[in-house]
């Protein structure tokens, strides 16, 4: 296996612990930020930014995308792209309705 060009990446324990530590730090950070009581769009932006950083860490290092075939990373990004398409096109309707739910 060792001489094969498809050698699997083995992360060091230190790497993994570092990433885990960073994730826990970010979790605490996001709770702290939410307690600051930032004004409306800012708090959402802050929370989501931290969430995306965490997601990046998990996907890159725990899931190994950093070393893996780029196609697998593309699948993940592609899934997110289609999710955003779904949301944004749906919002084209729901945000621009004259009366969101007329009967209510």
């Amino acid at each position, binding site marked *: *296996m060792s*001489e*094969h060009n*498809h050698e*699997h990446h*083995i*992360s060091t*324990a230190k790497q*993994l*612990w570092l*990433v*885990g530590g960073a*994730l*826990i730090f970010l*979790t*605490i950070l*996001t*709770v702290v930020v*939410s307690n600051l009581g930032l004004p*409306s769009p800012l*708090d*959402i932006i802050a*929370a*989501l930014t*931290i*969430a995306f950083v*965490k*997601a990046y860490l*998990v*996907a890159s*290092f*725990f*899931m190994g995308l950093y070393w*893996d*075939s780029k*196609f*697998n990373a593309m*699948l*993940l990004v*592609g*899934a*997110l792209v*289609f*999710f955003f398409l*779904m*949301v944004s096109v*749906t*919002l084209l309707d*729901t*945000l621009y309705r004259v009366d*969101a*739910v007329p009967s*209510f």
Partner: protein
Amino acid sequence: MANHSATHPAHVQHHFVDSDQQFESAKLGMWVFLVNEILFFGGLFCAYIVFRAWYPELFTQAALELNKLWGGVNTIVLIGSSLTVAMAIRSAQKNQTKGLRINLLITIALACVFMVIKYFEYEHKLHLGIAPGSFWNPTPEILHELSDPRANIFFGIYYMMTGVHGLHVLVGIGLMIWLYIRAGKGHFNSEYYTPVEITGLYWHLVDLIWIFLFPLLYLIE
């Protein structure tokens, strides 16, 4: 591995040329499945976004009923379990069966802790009558806090999202137990640890979903 074309290792299925092809196929297949999972949860996130855009004040009000502390603890528990799964894969890659089993065991334990905390969160809410749909029957104090008549929409989404996520955690626990048993039989080594790797991918995705659920449900207020 390079020139082993004549001898097929036992773990390689008949239709694969070699171990590498099998491993890469399994991993690609898992990633395609994860795309599925993302869009599956994507529907729920979409519903969340649509209703949040319509009723922002409802969401800030209702989110107060969720306990940030326990949500945060659960986040850390899940992150910890992701770490141990990654460690488990590392152990398998390095032929350390004992380390593999210990890490799997810790992962199972952490996943169970997550579910127990989730259970107490649910239990508390159901006790206050904050139940989904037709079981919606909040106590007067809660009704006072949740003055918005559409509060059940938020909790409908909350229960669906956390419920479906919890179901994934349960499935994950099942898979980990299966891996633990197989690891005990010595099925995994540095040449063949595909099930550990792809279960790990699944588990990290469950973690990823929660990383977004936590701020969206608990923190945004």
